[in-house]
């Protein structure tokens, strides 16, 4: 009976109206369809709300690595409990009582009708990928796994971890590897964020996991610049945006470099519409200006960086920093006009080795030689490296006028305090790591590290570095490294764990390292630090990897809360891999079905975060204040689900028997400091009580007790405070900076303790390899993005039929996550369908191809035309004319995700497999495409 009036469309009239709109909502209008009620309809709800009581619980959001603190409101009448609302925890100084759309919608992940409610086993005779499963009991599921992995050797297992696992389950995932002798972890944040872009920043600051380790003090900044980064503000990291918004409302100038008018760029005073891939040219031109014109904070630079250290070129033309036999560095002291030495590890260059005050120079007197050889300072050497990257050079590649680059360099260094956001996801080009490195250098040059209105180290990182520093000063060894080590040493530890064959009785490192060795020996491109990366995995599955003469196969997968089929590149890789005959068992543990669980043999259902008392006590994310927090469950698990800790113990029993379980307890004790004897005792108690997940419950108690002891509270009181407030604060940012600002009060966790322009990290890698690619430069080295070729600068317009490909995150979906299926988020995405699922293209290009908004188009990777994807066009001036843009979160294929399936297009259909030689970081925008109407 629904008559519809002729609808107004943009085309019917409105001559002269300047505003336009995406047509989605208007085209399918939602109006009341009049009808008489059915009997069901007349059964108005029997609401008991007034009789129900509201209870509050505190938890940690699960939908990105901002780890915002959340307050859960549950209504209960004793019998039924229903979570009705999530809020930001008002006691949290991290997210200041706010939560983004994903955080707000979290309860609908728990109540999602598509959830995996019981273990599932793939139907006999079906193929992986068909998503044909039958329900099973946990016993059946475990039996199935045991049966199908009987002949799988430990190194033939690969665990794949999503980012929730990296953040929350380190304590269980790494010991799991050790106890079961499984050297292989593919951790999804690595090749996307942590090792790619972040390692660049880390090489300067010594941190490791930047987006969890630095929270800039946007509140007090007067100039904020974002480069190739929508994730911090627009795609929403609540902890960051609450501060950035404060800064903006106080009058900060915001400058955003982005080829697209992203959500962040929309808040900018200046949207710098840069050509994609050329950001490094921009930052180096900025460095060039700031260094050559002396705009930098001289005091800070000479004191806390290795810019004044003396450096020379060796016989092969490689930069070598000068060190004596004890590793001490040399500087040219202005006071005595002579070369002096400073300690190998220190936070400042104020004193010579014999305790005299000195003022190191950044520029040496003309013709200074040491031992008959010319020397320079790192400052001079660095400037030499980039002096050809002038604003004029950069103008040609970035398409930004040289005058603007010059002006921005001046403003950035003169409007104080200023922040360049460190960046979030890297993984776009060969040179992203170098880009983030130069961003850290720029922030260092203006003295904005651990300073008001600058970058602030996360309290948790600072705390770890501080305790390590104190231990080191006392000459003590640090116990329980997973819990206590921070920054680069943590990274190094992780690298060592999986790359060093001596760590495993079977003597095999991860296949990633075996593969790297194999490639190197064969003279083929190889990756230096394939930390928890997928490089070599496909080859291992196919039986093409050998280690010390033996075949190194991969036969079984344990994929925990990860969705590589959807967010690794390309989708066919993982589909083919998981479907390979050599793979005898794929176990997926997850909350919802996903494109990856479709390829499982066994799906184990995990409880959602709102149903969980977290088995660990954690730091307060990237908060500048030091605090502890955890999760309290609001309701008991609704379905037949279990916790990761318990599943991992069971899996250990299957893979390595009782001995493995014992080793697991011990390994957790050693690495994470959670007492094995206590844990075993509590496990027995919980099992006797009938607790469904006794290991999770036991470790919860152990962790709670440990944390209480650490802060000097009784376990009861500590838990009480956590229960009432959700966070337990120990020290504020101000107090921490006063005590342990780094580098001001203590060394940063780099090799030398100073902020490093000459990178100790890359020096080490260089030392371990024969790689001389510019990625490994010990100083910041310029090289192009690689889109047009590894050595080709982007100083020309693309051809008529060629486009750059760019993608980014939408504010409503966590990258690679299944929360595109969340009913509330999905409804919002439908409301914004044209913009979120459209392929953005500029009208000047679209018109030439006769493409209008809504037309189906196909974009094809010009490097490999088998990689292509279809989608609807969204014609807009908001994207740079040489580029197209897609939001990355959509295009799920698994129909079991009823709302996400078929909505939008998947970017990993058009992106091929290309990795950088340092860490196998994805080079996911490093190609051009053609666009056609379908």
């Amino acid at each position: 009976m629904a008559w519809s009036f002729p609808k107004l469309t943009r085309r019917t009239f409105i001559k002269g109206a300047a505003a336009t709109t995406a047509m989605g909502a208007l085209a399918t209008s939602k109006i009341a369809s009049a009808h008489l009620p059915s009997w069901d309809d007349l059964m108005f709800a029997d609401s008991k709300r007034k009789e129900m009581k509201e209870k509050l619980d505190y938890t940690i959001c699960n939908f990105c690595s901002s780890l915002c603190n959340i307050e859960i409101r549950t209504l209960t009448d004793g019998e039924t409990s229903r979570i009705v609302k999530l809020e930001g925890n008002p006691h949290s100084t991290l997210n200041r009582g706010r939560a983004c759309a994903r955080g707000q919608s979290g309860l609908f992940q728990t109540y999602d009708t598509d959830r995996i409610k019981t273990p599932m086993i793939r139907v006999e005779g079906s193929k992986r990928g068909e998503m044909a499963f039958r329900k099973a009991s946990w016993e059946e599921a475990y039996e199935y796994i045991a049966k199908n992995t009987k002949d799988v050797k430990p190194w033939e297992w690969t665990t794949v971890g999503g980012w929730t696992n990296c953040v929350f389950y380190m304590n269980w995932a790494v010991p799991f590897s050790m106890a079961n002798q499984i050297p292989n972890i593919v951790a999804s944040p690595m090749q996307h964020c942590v090792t790619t872009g972040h390692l660049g920043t880390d090489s300067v600051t010594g941190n490791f996991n930047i987006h969890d380790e630095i929270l800039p003090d946007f509140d007090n900044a007067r100039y904020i610049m974002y480069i190739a980064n929508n994730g911090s503000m627009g795609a929403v990291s609540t902890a960051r945006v609450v501060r950035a918004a404060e800064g903006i409302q106080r009058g900060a100038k915001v400058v955003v470099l982005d080829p697209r008018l992203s959500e962040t760029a929309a808040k900018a005073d200046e949207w710098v519409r840069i050509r994609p891939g050329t950001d490094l040219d921009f930052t180096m031109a900025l460095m060039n200006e700031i260094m050559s014109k002396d705009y930098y904070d001289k005091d800070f630079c000479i004191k806390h960086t290795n810019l004044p250290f003396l450096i020379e070129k060796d016989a092969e033309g490689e930069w070598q920093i000068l060190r004596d036999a004890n590793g001490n560095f040399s500087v040219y002291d202005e006071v005595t006009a002579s070369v002096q030495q400073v300690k190998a590890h220190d936070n400042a260059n104020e004193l010579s080795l014999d305790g005299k005050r000195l003022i190191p120079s950044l520029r040496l007197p003309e013709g200074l030689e040491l031992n008959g050889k010319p020397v320079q300072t790192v400052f001079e050497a660095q400037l030499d490296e980039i002096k050809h990257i002038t604003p004029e050079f950069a103008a040609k590649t970035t398409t930004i006028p040289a005058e603007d680059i010059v002006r921005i360099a001046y403003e950035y260094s003169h409007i104080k305090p200023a922040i360049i956001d460190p960046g979030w996801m890297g993984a776009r080009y060969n040179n992203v790591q170098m880009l983030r490195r130069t961003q850290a250098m720029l922030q260092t040059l203006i003295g904005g590290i651990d300073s008001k209105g600058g970058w602030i180290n996360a309290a948790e990182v600072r705390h770890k570095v501080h305790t390590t520093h104190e231990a080191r000063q006392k000459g003590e060894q640090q116990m329980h490294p997973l819990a206590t080590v921070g920054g680069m040493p943590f990274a190094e530890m992780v690298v060592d764990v999986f790359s060093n064959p001596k760590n495993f009785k079977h003597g095999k490192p991860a296949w990633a390292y075996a593969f790297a060795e194999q490639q190197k020996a064969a003279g083929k491109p190889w990756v230096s630090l394939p930390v928890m990366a997928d490089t070599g995995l496909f080859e291992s599955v196919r039986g093409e990897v050998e280690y010390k003469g033996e075949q190194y196969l991969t036969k079984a997968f344990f994929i925990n809360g990860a969705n590589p089929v959807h967010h690794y590149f390309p989708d066919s890789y993982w589909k083919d891999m998981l479907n390979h005959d050599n793979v005898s068992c794929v176990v997926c543990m997850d909350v919802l079905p996903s494109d990856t669980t479709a390829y499982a043999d066994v799906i184990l259902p995990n409880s959602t975060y709102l149903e969980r008392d977290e088995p660990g006590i954690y730091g307060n994310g990237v908060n500048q204040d030091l605090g502890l927090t955890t999760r309290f469950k609001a309701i008991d698990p609704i379905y037949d689900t279990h916790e990761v800790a318990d599943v991992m113990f069971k899996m250990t029993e299957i893979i390595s028997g009782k001995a493995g379980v014992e080793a697991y307890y011990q390994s957790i004790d050693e690495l994470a400091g959670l007492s094995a004897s206590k844990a075993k005792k509590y496990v027995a108690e919980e099992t006797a009580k009938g607790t469904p997940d006794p290991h999770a419950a036991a470790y919860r108690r152990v962790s709670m007790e440990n944390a209480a002891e650490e802060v000097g509270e009784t376990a009861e009181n500590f838990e009480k405070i956590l229960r009432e407030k959700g966070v337990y604060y120990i020290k504020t940012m101000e107090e921490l900076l006063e005590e342990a600002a780094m580098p001001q009060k203590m060394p940063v966790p780099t090799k030398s303790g100073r902020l490093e322009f000459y990178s100790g990290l890359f020096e080490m890698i260089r030392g371990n390899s024969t790689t001389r690619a510019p990625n490994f430069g010990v100083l910041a080295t310029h090289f192009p993005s690689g889109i047009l070729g590894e050595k080709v600068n982007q100083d020309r317009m693309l051809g008529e039929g060629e486009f750059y490909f760019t993608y980014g995150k939408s504010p409503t979906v966590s990258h690679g996550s299944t929360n595109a299926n969340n009913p509330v988020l999905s409804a919002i995405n439908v409301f914004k369908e044209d913009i979120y699922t459209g392929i953005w293209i500029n009208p000047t290009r679209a018109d030439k191809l006769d493409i209008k908004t809504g037309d189906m188009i196909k974009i094809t990777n010009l490097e490999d035309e088998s990689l292509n994807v279809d989608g609807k066009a969204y014609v807009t001036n908001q994207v740079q004319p040489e580029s197209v843009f897609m939001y990355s979160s959509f295009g799920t294929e698994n129909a079991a995700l009823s709302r996400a399936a078929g909505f939008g297009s998947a970017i990993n259909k058009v992106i091929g497999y290309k990795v950088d030689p340092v860490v196998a970081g994805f080079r996911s925008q490093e190609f051009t495409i053609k666009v056609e109407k379908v």
Partner: protein
Amino acid sequence: MFYFGQEQWNWLVAVYLFLGGMGAMVMAISTLVHRLKVFGQDNTLLMIWGNLTGFVMLSVGSAMLFYHLLDHLAVWHVLLGVFNKPDAWIAWGTWSIIFGMIWGLVYTLPHIPTPKFLGWCQLLKFFKWFGTKYAGLMAWGTVFMSVFTAVYTGMLLQSFPAVELWHNPGIPVLFTVSATSTALASLLILQYVVVRADDHELRHRFELIDTWLIGSEIIIIAGFFFYLLNGTLNGQASHELLWGDPIWTYGFFVAGLIVPFLINLGMVTHKLPSNGFLVIVSATLILMGGYILRHYMLLAGIWELPYPK
């Protein structure tokens, strides 16, 4: 700025506006004509047919309205509206329809012989007695309520401030004129087709009045035409939706107004023979136009906002 219309008040409401205004005026005129013994004639048959037809029209219209509601069980609250919300037109309109229908029926009942199978019904006897005793009251009550009903629909549409097409004094005038015009057309059809009494003077009077009304309506529509054309963008949008649509332009304006006007004018000036066929054609066109008018008035209402729907 964005411009968009509404779809909540769809054809169901358009039908109600049409039947409501028309049915009410049919009852008013029928009753009046009978009560005043216009032209010295009996007019009872016409009154009975008129009032019953009007009653049916109002019933169907009200049923449309009822059906259109979102929460049918809550409808009784509207009856208290005149006490709680005397500023709401619908509150008054609800009662005016109810009273108009009941009083009109009560006025009519005494003139309808009781069918044998209802001989037992005391209630019927009571109403017949009541309607006889208080015929005058019933008559004037019906007329007042019915006229109110015809007028209030226009007042209601006028009370929505955002829509330039509606928020002006022309709408109540237009709706009242149209309601009366369509009512006369209905009555003419009844006279020629059903009642067929010897009331030629009445018929001519109806035709004359209707001619005046249609002529007025053409002027009012012309007023709207220019008012919207020179109006704000909101008005211009409505203008486009109306005059850019052949159904409005040709279905309503030409076929529903101009043609009947010319036919009627011809008939009342005796340039055209006054025969049943022409009258019925003209009346039918007027009725068709009356519906299209209401339908398009609802369709073409435009909101102007800095954001889309």
